[in-house]
Structures are given as structure tokens and as C-alpha cells.
């Protein structure tokens, strides 16, 4: 309701004296449109993500409402968009709150949905996030301190714009208007809902004193109502002889010269595509009352109704209501360890683990229960029972320690399987090794200490002297740790050495990126069904270079079983086969080793995680007797167009060469074939960009008995920290390293050497690469590790490499154990 009032008083009536007119005007928006006070959620504190009480945060509750657990997508987004520990102290959500406080009714009471309590602060916080972006009418532009920015440009001009816009909104329309009250670079938005103007006219100038009342955001998140904040501004406007205000910017007066609003704005609506909370869900939460509702996993009051938990992930909290008994079902694998851990405001909940026959198999500890070594693959059941009072909520996580699977254990014919592990930060330093036979029975279990920072080599043959030859697959579990073990595993025999990286995810589509079928070459395949409960039907498909299907063969692998042999044992491979796909209805893992009597190399079977539209070849070795081969696969149903750019040692890019690869086709051959007549021996690295995701491998060989392979890296794999997990034992071994700076910015690179126990060898010091120039953009560095980092102590066991900018890299090394044994060194 408009309450505008204008009074004009004749203060001077003497004919000869100057005439001074005075007047006033006041208006306020109707009661139902007064903006509400709310917290401004500063980015430094990040309370939308981390919470403002001892309860889970607004975004954690939102995630729990949407998915049943937290953290999920909204928390992940909030960590990026609602939290900035390095930001300016004034960065926050005041504009988003201001928009919500005008356009949305105030949440005035707490509510509950799916057993999740939403306080007023949760509701206001989520409404604020709904306005992460908004359509807007702006009067003036933001002053950001840049050249051309104007703190006095409230449209249609200066103080006049402020004056007219207040009247047009509050008096004429009964609408609040938001003021950004800081004329400097800081932004402080407040919704104004009332004004009082008093003026005196002096000739053609009207001097106005205007007080505005705003909803304040200097309140706690759960505050209800409107806390006033008032500000008074003084300014002058040009008027005509009738006292009508002219189209002129006017000017600020008194203290307002330095302290006046930067601009005014009015929100129109949220931009739904710009928010990371869903509008309908937020509205349901905001409108929720106290009637209460049980959690989303109900009915799960009996073992027969147990809610199946798909992912057992640490720090993923399921939200349950403690009104009654709740049951959850998890699938656990033999040899695994398992925890059910409560994070809850309640202390009187009883948590126990049972097998399918109802026998308790877990051992309780405060706030949870655990199984140390699961005895067999099976479903297990977790019961949460309120002991005394009910009606509150609990948050529970189910998790096993992170692990890595070795899909093939080589122990026969002179081959050995060895692991290189770098101890990770964990509650304690135990790593468990489980060994499985061909029937997927666990035939060995050993624990070993891998202290944080220590580099430890483990030979499976030594670890399991009695059963090693029966071992077919193995699992490495980083006990009581949050991260999987870091390192790699190796197969070796005389001059043969093949390394495989950890952290290769299981997948339904696996690619053997090359079939070597000339001379004495063989293609060894290990394939494993990663599903421990169900068999998988797998189809093997052989393609030629043009993507034609030459052969298909179907077979079945039992639960958790692996299958190892030459490629021909999986299905007859016709002449002309260039690559092979294994497509399974369950998740699978595997690797390929290419070998002959002199050398061998291999890669994990390529899969989705290796696909990218930008692939990088960090090294094109074509001198010193080295050859480089490249294989690029197009595992898509459409033709791929590739732009291949090579770079010289000074970072100069070649003209891109454009080639195409047919659907399901490939290009495999010497690096020179990829460039044909454009090849230049000065090329040192190359980049492939494509219109659809591709994958591939690189191989390096020398004198027929040194052979190295690794998957092509994607640009996204570049990191600022790499670890060279092999020391330069200079008397018998050598380690060559390749670093590539794929982006345009120069980066400093430095290395910190450690001994095998994880002790730094330079007392915290580091050795910088190429001081003071570092590694320029689009350039690579290739050298022995001692050449890159001169002065490495002789007792160095491994080296941590740090870079300002993300870099790619790998190593080639000879461990000194076999005369010509070389292979890739993955930098984890």
C-alpha cells in the first residue's frame, strides 16, 4: 500500500526575499511485500556447505533429501561456488538473499521431510541458492575499480536516478528495490522497502535528505522477521520553475559524496539453469511443516525388507530416521574388511552386522560395528535400533577400505609378480594382500606394514611361498585408509619387464588396442570378471583397421574369475585383425602384454577412463636407436576427425595434420606414418584433438630387446604433483623421465628426494629443474633423472615432483635386475 505524502510549505513570503520551498515525501511497500532479513552466507566460512550449527549443512540436508545420502552433487557444487577460503572477506551471497527476500515468502518455521529436519536457516539458505543466478533490471552499473567504471551512474543518471527509481518502485508500484550501497569495489546488496524524503528548494536546485529503510542481513541464519537498517543520503536535483524535477543527473552532497549507493536493481526471477539446487525440491523443503515423515528407505524394519546399499563409500552418509528399527543390506567380498559407522546427534543407537542367517558377524565399537575379514562373498545386513528414545535422525556410512585388484598373478615359467607401494596417509600403516585361486577362493591373506611415505617392494612369491603358484588374482587393501594404495605392479622374467598402473577402474567395454601377429610376437591377455557374485557374458569382437568386424565370439566368466592366455584362446583371430573389443554385461578388468622371446611390454585394457577428445604424446623418440609407434582407436559408431599437431623443442607448433578414422577403426604404426610427408625429425611431442573421444597407446623400442608401452594420456590427466617411484641406483640402473607442460604458461618444476623409509634427504629442500627458466609452455623435458635434477643424493629411493602448472609425464627405466629389461614408469 502506497503511503505517499507531499507537503509544501511556504517558508518565505516577503516579496523581496528569495523564495524557499520545502516539502517531503514518504512511501513504503505494503506489509506483504516487506523483504525479510536473512544471513549473507560469507564465502570464507562456507556454512552452506559445512553447516552453521552442529547439524549437517543446508546443502548436506538437501543432498540427503534428493538422494538419501550426503555429500552428493549439490555439496560438490557448493564447495566450488559457495565456499572460498582464500576469497575476500566481503564475498558472499547478499545479492542472492536480497533477490529471494523480495520474490519469495519468508520461511518462518522449521519443517521435516523424509526424516530430515530443515530449520528456518536451512530453508532461507536453500532459497538463497535458488537465486544463484537471476534475471534482473539494473539501474546503473557495478563499480569494479576498473578504468571506465563509474560509481555515480545510477541510471538514468546519478542522484536523480536514485531518487526517481525509489519513487517508481516503492511509491508508484509498492515494490522494494535493492541498493548496492558500497560505491567502491565491495558489493553489499540490501533491499529497500521504505523511504522518507525531505527537501528544500533553492532556485533551480532541490536539496534532498532521503532516509531509506532496508532489510538487514546482519542476522543469524535462523532469524525470523525483518531487522531494519537505515541510511540517510543527501543530494541535489535540478528542477524547473514549477518544481518539477528535470532530466538531469543531479549530484550527491555532504557525506553522500563519498558514501552513496553504487547502483539499484530489481530481481525478476531465478535463472533455473544457473542454480545447482532444483526449484521444485527447494519449494517442497521450504513449505515443509512439522507433521514429520519417515526416511526414504522405509519400509526397512525387518531383515527381509533391508534397504540395498549400492555403494559402500567412506564419508557418504545415509540419512535415517530413528523412529524404529532399520535394516540395510550390503554385498561384501571375501577378504574385505567392512565398517558401519554412525555420525549422529543420538548416542543411544545400537548398530550390529548380521549374515543372511541372522547370525551376528560384526564386532561392535563406539558408534558402529565392523567385520575385520569377510569370510565369503555374500550379502550382509546392518541393523540400526533405537535403544531408548526415537524420533530423531541418524547418519550412517558403510564402507570397506579402498583396494586395488591385480587381475592376473604371474608365478609360473620364470615369471614373478611384484608390487611397488608407496605408503599413504592412514590411521595405521597396514596393507593387506589377499590371494585368490582359479575358483575365486581366498587361499592367502597377509598383512604388511607400509608406513606413510615409505617405498616398499613386495614380491607375491615371497609373501605367499606356499600358495603363490596357485594364485590367479590378488587384491591389495589399504586398511583403515581413505585412499587406495599408490604404486604399480610388475611382471618380470629375465629380460622381460612389464609394469601396470593401479587406479584402473573396471568397465563393461575393454579394448585390446593392438594385435601383433607377425614373426614371433604373441599377445597375452588377462581378463577378469570384477563382479564377485554373478557370472558375466562376454563378447569378443575383432576389428580390422577400417572398423570392419572380422569375428565375434561369446563366452562366460564365472563370478570373480579370471581368464588368462594368448588372444587366440579367447577366440580365433582372423588375419587382418588390428584390435579387439571385449564387451561384457558386468564390470570387467584386464591387461594385454605383447611379447616375443627378446622383449615384452603391455598396457591395461583400454576403457572409458582412457577416452578423451585431446590425447597427448609427450615423447616422440626417433633418435639414439629408439623408435616410436602410436596406436589410436576410434571406438565410436561415427567417423572421427583428428587434428594432429606436433611441437618442436622450442614449443613451436606445426601446421595441424587432419586425418580421419573410420567408425571402430584405428591407426597404428610408426609415428612418422601419422605425419607422412609433414614429418620433421625436430618434432619432440604431439597432441591429437578429435571431434569424438578416442583412446590409444604409445610404444618405444630399441634394438629389438627394449620395449615399452603406455596408454595415451589425456590432457585432463595433467597434475601439479607426480611421484617417481623408483630411485636412481646409478651403478646398475637408469631412469629416464619425460615431463610435458601442455599449456601455454611457463612452470617451475622441483623435486624432493626421499629415502625408502620416507625421510626427506635434503632436510626439506628441493632441487629445481632448469633454474631459473623452468619449463616453458608447450615444451617438454627429457633426460635421466639426475640430469633433470642435478645433485640427487645416492640413497634416493623415490622422488616427489611438484609443478606450478599441471604437467604430464612418465618414465622409462631399467631396474638393473635384467640386462635389457626396461619398461614404463607410471608417475602416480
Amino acid at each position: 500500500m502506497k503511503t505517499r505524502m507531499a507537503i509544501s510549505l511556504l517558508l518565505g513570503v516577503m516579496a523581496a526575499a528569495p523564495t524557499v520551498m520545502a516539502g517531503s515525501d514518504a512511501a513504503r511497500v505494503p506489509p506483504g511485500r516487506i523483504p525479510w532479513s536473512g544471513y549473507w552466507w560469507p564465502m570464507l566460512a562456507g556454512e552452506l556447505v559445512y553447516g552453521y550449527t552442529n547439524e549437517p549443512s543446508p546443502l548436506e540436508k538437501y543432498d540427503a533429501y534428493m538422494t538419501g545420502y550426503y555429500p552428493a552433487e549439490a555439496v560438490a557444487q557448493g564447495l566450488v561456488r559457495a565456499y572460498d577460503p582464500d576469497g575476500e572477506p566481503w564475498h558472499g551471497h547478499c545479492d542472492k538473499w536480497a533477490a529471494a527476500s523480495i520474490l519469495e515468502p519468508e520461511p518462518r518455521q522449521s519443517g521435516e521431510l523424509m526424516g530430515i529436519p530443515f530449520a528456518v536457516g536451512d530453508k532461507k539458505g536453500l532459497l538463497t541458492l535458488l537465486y544463484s543466478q537471476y534475471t534482473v533490471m539494473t539501474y546503473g552499473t557495478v563499480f569494479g575499480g576498473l578504468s571506465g567504471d563509474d560509481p555515480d551512474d545510477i541510471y538514468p543518471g546519478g542522484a536523480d536516478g536514485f531518487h526517481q527509481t525509489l519513487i517508481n518502485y516503492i511509491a508508484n508500484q509498492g515494490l522494494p528495490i535493492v541498493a548496492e550501497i558500497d560505491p567502491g569495489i565491495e558489493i553489499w546488496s540490501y533491499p529497500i522497502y521504505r523511504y522518507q524524503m525531505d527537501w528544500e528548494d533553492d532556485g533551480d536546485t532541490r536539496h534532498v535528505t532521503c532516509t531509506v529503510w532496508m532489510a538487514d542481513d546482519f542476522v543469524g541464519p535462523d532469524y525470523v522477521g525483518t531487522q531494519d537498517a537505515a541510511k540517510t543520503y543527501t543530494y541535489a536535483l535540478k528542477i524547473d520553475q514549477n518544481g518539477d524535477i528535470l532530466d538531469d543527473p543531479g549530484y550527491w552532497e555532504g557525506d553522500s559524496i563519498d558514501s552513496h549507493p553504487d547502483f539499484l536493481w530489481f530481481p525478476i526471477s531465478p535463472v533455473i539453469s544457473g542454480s545447482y539446487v532444483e526449484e521444485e525440491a527447494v519449494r517442497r523443503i521450504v513449505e515443509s511443516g512439522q507433521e514429520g515423515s519417515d526416511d526414504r528407505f522405509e519400509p526397512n524394519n525387518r531383515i527381509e525388507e533391508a534397504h540395498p546399499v549400492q555403494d559402500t563409500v567412506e564419508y557418504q552418509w545415509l540419512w535415517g530416521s530413528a523412529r524404529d528399527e532399520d535394516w540395510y543390506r550390503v554385498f561384501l567380498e571375501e577378504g574385505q574388511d567392512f565398517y558401519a559407522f554412525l555420525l549422529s546427534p543420538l548416542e543411544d543407537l545400537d548398530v550390529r552386522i548380521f549374515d543372511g542367517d541372522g547370525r551376528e558377524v560384526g564386532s561392535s565399537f563406539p558408534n558402529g560395528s565392523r567385520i575385520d575379514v569377510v569370510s565369503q562373498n555374500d550379502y550382509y545386513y546392518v541393523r540400526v535400533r533405537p535403544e531408548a528414545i526415537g524420533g530423531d535422525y541418524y547418519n550412517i556410512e558403510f564402507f570397506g577400505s579402498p583396494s586395488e585388484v591385480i587381475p592376473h598373478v604371474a608365478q609360473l615359467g620364470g615369471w614373478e609378480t611384484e608390487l611397488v607401494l608407496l605408503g599413504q596417509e592412514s590411521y595405521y600403516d597396514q596393507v593387506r594382500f589377499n590371494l585368490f585361486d582359479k575358483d575365486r577362493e581366498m587361499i592367502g591373506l597377509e598383512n604388511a606394514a607400509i608406513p606413510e611415505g615409505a617405498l616398499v617392494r613386495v614380491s607375491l612369491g615371497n609373501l605367499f611361498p606356499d600358495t603363490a603358484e596357485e594364485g590367479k588374482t590378488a587384491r591389495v587393501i589399504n586398511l583403515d585408509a581413505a585412499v587406495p594404495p599408490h604404486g604399480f605392479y610388475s611382471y618380470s622374467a629375465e629380460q622381460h619387464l612389464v609394469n601396470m598402473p593401479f587406479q584402473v577402474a573396471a568397465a563393461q567395454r575393454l579394448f585390446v588396442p593392438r594385435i601383433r601377429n607377425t614373426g614371433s610376437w604373441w599377445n597375452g591377455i588377462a581378463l577378469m570378471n570384477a563382479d564377485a557374485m554373478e557370472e558375466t557374458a562376454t563378447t569378443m569382437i575383432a576389428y580390422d583397421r577400417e572398423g570392419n568386424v572380422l569375428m565375434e565370439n561369446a563366452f562366460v566368466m564365472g563370478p570373480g574369475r579370471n581368464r588368462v592366455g594368448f588372444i587366440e584362446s579367447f577366440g580365433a583371430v582372423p588375419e587382418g585383425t588390428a584390435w579387439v573389443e571385449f564387451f561384457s554385461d558386468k564390470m570387467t578388468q584386464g591387461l594385454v602384454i605383447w611379447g616375443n622371446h627378446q622383449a615384452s611390454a603391455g598396457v591395461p585394457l583400454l576403457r572409458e577412463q582412457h577416452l578423451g577428445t585431446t590425447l597427448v604424446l609427450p615423447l616422440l623418440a626417433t633418435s639414439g636407436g629408439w623408435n616410436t609407434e602410436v596406436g589410436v582407436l576410434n571406438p565410436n559408431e561415427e567417423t572421427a576427425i583428428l587434428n594432429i599437431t606436433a611441437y618442436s623443442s622450442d614449443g613451436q607448433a606445426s601446421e595441424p595434420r587432419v586425418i580421419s578414422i573410420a567408425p571402430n577403426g584405428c591407426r597404428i604404426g610408426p609415428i612418422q606414418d601419422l605425419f607422412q610427408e609433414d614429418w620433421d625429425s625436430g618434432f619432440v611431442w604431439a597432441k591429437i584433438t578429435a571431434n569424438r573421444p578416442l583412446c590409444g597407446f604409445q610404444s618405444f623400442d630399441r634394438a629389438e630387446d627394449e620395449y615399452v608401452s603406455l596408454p595415451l594420456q589425456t590432457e585432463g590427466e595433467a597434475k601439479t604433483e607426480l611421484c617417481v617411484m623408483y630411485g636412481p641406483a646409478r651403478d646398475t640402473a637408469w631412469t629416464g623421465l619425460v615431463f610435458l607442460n601442455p599449456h601455454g604458461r611457463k612452470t617451475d618444476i622441483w623435486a624432493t628426494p626421499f629415502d625408502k623409509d620416507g625421510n626427506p634427504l635434503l632436510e626439506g629442500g628441493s632441487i629445481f629443474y632448469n633454474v631459473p627458466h623452468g619449463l616453458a609452455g608447450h615444451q617438454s623435458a627429457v633426460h635421466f633423472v639426475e640430469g633433470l635434477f642435478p645433485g640427487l643424493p645416492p640413497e634416493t629411493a623415490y622422488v616427489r615432483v611438484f609443478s606450478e602448472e599441471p604437467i604430464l609425464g612418465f618414465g622409462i627405466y631399467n631396474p638393473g635386475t635384467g640386462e635389457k629389461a626396461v619398461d614404463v614408469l607410471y608417475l602416480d
Partner: protein
Amino acid sequence: MGSSWEVRAVYRQVNGDWSGPVLWTFTVIAEEEEICQVRVTSEESPGQALLEFDKGSGQLRHVTLTDTLRGEVMVREIRINTLSPVYPSFSAIPFHVPFFLYSSPNDDFRLERLLNGRSIGSETLSQAVEPVSRIQWTSLLPKEAQDEWKAYDSEGMLFSIQKGDRLVFKQIWFQDLPWALYTESKDSRAWLKRELP
């Protein structure tokens, strides 16, 4: 009547960032001897507008804004009493329109508007018009719009509307397009969505 076109708009946020795009649909709902009515709606916004143009001059004469505030439907009427370029007030819908009538429309114009029957002031706008080549107008467009219109090869007219020395909006028009290909103001950017043949 019945013809329609779509306009994508992004909005400058208070912190200077640009919002994600909002798609506005313009539909001609009535065409009579003297007036043409266009309704503007969006699936992403509760707000809508009814625009009434004078067919003879192309002048935007009347705007009806329908918005929602706290669940309450709010209708506002804006009447334009003068022949002038028009820019949106009280609405995020990009209905900026230059003045088309004169053969050489580089001039100053008086814009007078009534909101719900009450004057909201009078202001002077200046308009400058110049032809723009494809290279020139392409360089004015944001990247997303450039991608969408890269295959369109035509010479257009650039309208620049200022108040004093401040730009109010600039707009690029083409003979064969139903609406401005591109509009830029201090708080929004809008471009016509290209219809594929």
C-alpha cells in the same frame, strides 16, 4: 499472425558475471489494420509481456507486464506516448526497439512513458544508425551467438541508442529477420535463436 521467434538472453549479475541463458518466445497473436500484438513468454520464467506495436511507424506503444511476486500475480501497464526508441523498464524481457520510421533516423528523441497511468518521467535519447558488414557485426556478438550465426552472411544495420554519453542499448537488425539479431545493454545481452532451414 502466429509467426514466432525465440531470443536467448543472459543477464549481468551484481558481481559482474553473466547468468545462464533464458529463452524467450515471441509470438504474434494479433495483427490488425493499425496494431500488431506480440506475446513474450518463457518456460524458464514466470514473467510475460504483451507488446503492442503501431504498424505504420513500428513504434512500440503499449506493454503489459505480468509477473509473479511471492505467488501474487502482478500486472503493470506501460504506455509510450512519444515516437522514440524504447528500452525495457521493470522487466527482464528483452523488448528493446529502436525507432525505424525515418529514412535517416539519426536523431534525438523524447521518450515519455506512463506506468499504470502515472508518468515515470521524460528523457532524451539519441539514436545513431550505420550499416555493419558481416565481419563487423560478428565481432560484436558473444561467442555463443557467433557460433549460432556463423553461417549467416548478410549486411545489417547497427542502432546505437544513448542517453547523453551513456549507451542505453545497441542492436543489430537485418531485413530478412523478424527481430534484432543481437541486443546489448548494460545489464543484458540477447540474441535471436537461429532457425534451421
